[in-house]
C-alpha cells in the first residue's frame, strides 16, 4: 500500500480486497468442486503451480503488456486445471481417498515440489515481473476519500473476481446446469437416476476449480508481490479451503470472508510500514490469520448450523453405482 495518508481502517479494508483476491479465486474454485461433491485439499499446490506458470509466461513472451497478461492468466488457469485433473482422475475414476489424494497433490505441486522445481529450473527467482496488473482507474479517483482506495484502487483481477462471484451465484441458483451440480453434490444416486452423468459433472467442476486456484496463485506473482519466490502463497490455499466452510458454500459469503482474511494478512506488514513497533507482538500479528481461521472454524462447527446451511451431503464420498 503506497497510499499512507488514509486512515488505518480504510487502508486495512483496501488491503483486505487486495490480499483477499487470491483467496477469493481459490475459494470460489474449491466451492465449485465441493458443490459437485469433490473435496480437493490440493488448493495450495494448484495455486503455487498457477503462480509460477503465470509468472513464467510474462517473463518469456515478449509482446505487449495486455496480451502477455491475458496469456499468463490463461496459462495459470490451465496449469491449475491440469493439477486438479490428477486429483479428479484419482478420486472420481479410481475412487481413491479424497483427503489423501488432495494432500498428495499439495505435496506434489507445493512449495517443495513441482512449483519449486519449475521456478528454479526456469530461473524465475529474484526477477521483477516484466508485466503486472496495474490499477484500472486514474489516480485522481484513487485519491478520493474512503471509497477511492477501497473501490477504485484495484487492478482488473479484483474486478473480474467480483463478476465471477455474480456469475457463480447465477450459475448455481438460476441455471439447469447449476441445479444438476447441486444434485450431484447432494445426492449422486438420485442425480444418476435422473440421467445426469455424475462423473462428468464432478470432473468438470473439479478441473474448473483448479483453474480458479491457478488464477488465484497468479494473482500473487502478477499483481501483489509481483515476483516469484518459493512457497509464495504462504498457506493461502488452506485458508481458502476453510473459507468455503465459513461461507456455508455460498459465493457471496466467500467474498466477505476472503476480504476479512485478506485484511488480517496485512495487519502485521501495515503496522510495520507505519513504524508502529510491534515488539513482542510480532509473533501474534503474524499468526493472526491462522489463529483466526481456527477460531472461525470452531465457531462454525460448534454452532451446528453447518448441516442446515449448505455442506453438500455427498462431499468427500466417491460415487459408485454398484455400492449405493
Amino acid at each position, binding site marked *: 500500500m503506497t497510499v499512507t495518508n488514509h486512515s488505518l481502517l480504510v487502508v486495512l479494508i483496501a488491503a483486505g480486497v487486495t490480499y483477499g483476491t487470491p483467496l477469493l479465486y481459490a475459494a470460489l474454485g474449491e466451492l465449485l468442486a465441493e458443490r459437485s461433491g469433490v473435496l480437493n485439499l490440493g488448493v495450495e499446490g494448484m495455486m503455487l503451480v498457477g503462480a509460477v506458470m503465470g509468472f513464467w509466461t510474462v517473463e518469456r513472451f515478449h509482446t505487449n503488456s495486455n496480451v502477455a497478461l491475458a496469456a499468463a492468466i490463461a496459462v495459470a488457469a490451465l496449469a491449475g486445471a491440469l493439477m486438479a485433473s490428477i486429483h479428479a482422475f484419482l478420486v472420481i475414476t479410481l475412487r481413491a481417498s479424497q483427503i*489423501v489424494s488432495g494432500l498428495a497433490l499439495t505435496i506434489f505441486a507445493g512449495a517443495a515440489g513441482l512449483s519449486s522445481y519449475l521456478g528454479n529450473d526456469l530461473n524465475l527467482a529474484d526477477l521483477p515481473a516484466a508485466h503486472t496488473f496495474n490499477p484500472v482507474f486514474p489516480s485522481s479517483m484513487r485519491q478520493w476519500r474512503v471509497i477511492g482506495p477501497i473501490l477504485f484502487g484495484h487492478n482488473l483481477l479484483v474486478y473480474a473476481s467480483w463478476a465471477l462471484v455474480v456469475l457463480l451465484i447465477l450459475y448455481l441458483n438460476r441455471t439447469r446446469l447449476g441445479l444438476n451440480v447441486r444434485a450431484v453434490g447432494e445426492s449422486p444416486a438420485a442425480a444418476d437416476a435422473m440421467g445426469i452423468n455424475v462423473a462428468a459433472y464432478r470432473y468438470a467442476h473439479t478441473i474448473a476449480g483448479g483453474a480458479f486456484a491457478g488464477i488465484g496463485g497468479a494473482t500473487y506473482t502478477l499483481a501483489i508481490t509481483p515476483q516469484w519466490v518459493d512457497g509464495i502463497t504462504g498457506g493461502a490455499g488452506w485458508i481458502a479451503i476453510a473459507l468455503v466452510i465459513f461461507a456455508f458454500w455460498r459465493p457471496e459469503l466467500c467474498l466477505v470472508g476472503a476480504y476479512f482474511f485478506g485484511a488480517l494478512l496485512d495487519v502485521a506488514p501495515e503496522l510495520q510500514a507505519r513504524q508502529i513497533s510491534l515488539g513482542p507482538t510480532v509473533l501474534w500479528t503474524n499468526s493472526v490469520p491462522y489463529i483466526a481461521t481456527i477460531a472461525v472454524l470452531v465457531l462454525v462447527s460448534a454452532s451446528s448450523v453447518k448441516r442446515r446451511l449448505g455442506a453438500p451431503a455427498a462431499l468427500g464420498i466417491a460415487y459408485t453405482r454398484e455400492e449405493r
Partner: protein
Amino acid sequence: MQVRIERRLSQPRWLAVAVPAGSLLFAFVTAGIVLLATGHNPLTEYRKLFDAGFIEPGALDQTLITATPLMFTGLAAAAAFRMRLFNIGAEGQLYVGAITAGAAGLYFGGNGGPSAFAIAAMVVCGCLGGALWASIPGVLRAFFKTNEIITSLMLNYVAGYLLTYLIFDSESYWRDTSGFNATVFPTGKALPNSALWPAWTIHLQGGIPVPLGLGFALLVAVILFVLYRRTRFGFEVQVLSDSERAARYGGVRVRRKILAVMAISGAIAGLGGASQDGDFRHMLDGDPNGLQKLGYGYTGIVIAALARYNPFAVVAIAFVLGGLENAGNTLQGVDFPAGLVGVIQGIILFSALGGELLVRYRVRVGRRSSTGPVSAAA
C-alpha cells in the same frame, strides 16, 4: 468390451508388496518423463541421486540424519491416519517438541546432573510438547467436531512463527545472548554437553554414526505395532476407523479415542523434535531457512501413506525417502533443480493411491458375464 471394477472379496498378500514396489517404479518412470521434458537425462540424474543418497563416502551418515526425523513424522502420521484422523500438523508438533525439549536440555543439562537424566528429561518434555500442540486440534475435533486437517495445518504456521520468534525476535531462554556475534546473527543457545545425545558407530564406509534418535524411532515403531495389533485400544481404533456408528454402538468412547490418538501422534512428532535438538542441531534451530525449510512433517505423510500405516514399513520407507531427500539436498544447484525430490515423492504417493484400487478392487476387461443382458438378447 467393457472395463469393470469389482470389489475384491479377499486381498491377496502379494499385492501388499507389489503395489508399493510398483508405485515406486511408476513414480521414477513418470518423474523421468518430467525430467526429459525439462531437458535433463533421467538416467544420469537418477544415478546421481542414488550415489549421493547411499553410495558416496559419508552419504549414509547424512541419509540417517534425514531419515531419523522422517521416521518420527511418518510414525506420527501413521498413528493418527490409522483412525482416519488426519493430523497433518506433525511439522508444527515437531517444532514445539524441539522447543520444550530444548528448554529441558538447557535446564537439566546445565546443572551438572547425569547425562542420562538430561536426555530422559528432553525425551519426556519433547513428547509432552508435541502431544500438547496436537491436543489443540484433538480437543477441537473431539468436542466441536472441527475439521482437524485445517486446524492442525494452521498450527504449523503458528508453531513456525513461534520458533522464529524465540530465536530472532525475543531474548528468550533458548537464545544465545552472550557476545557481540550472537546479537548480530541470532542463534540458539548451545546445549550443554551432558544434554547431547550419543551415537553408536557401525563400521561400514569408514564408520557410520547411528544417532540415539534412530533407536527411539525403532522403539516407537515396535510400541505402535503392538498397540494397534495386540491391544483392546488398537482394536477399538480399528473399529472406529471402519465405522464410527458401529464403534459407538459397541461402547467405544469416541471422544477419548480422538484425544488419545491425537496426543500419541503429537508425542511421536515431538520426540522427533527432541531428537533434532539432542542428536543433530545441539541447540534450538529457529532459522526460517533451517529446520523449517525441510518440511519433515509433510514428507512424513507421504511415508505413512506409502507404508499403508504399518509402523515397520514406515521405518523402511523413511530410510529410502530419507536417502532421496538427502541426495536432493546435496545435489541441489544449477544442474539439479530444487523441488525434484518433492515431485518424485508426490508421484510416488499418487501411484500408491491409484494402486490401492488394485488392492481393494479387481479390474476386469472384457465382455459382461454370460448371464448378463447382452447374451440374453443374443
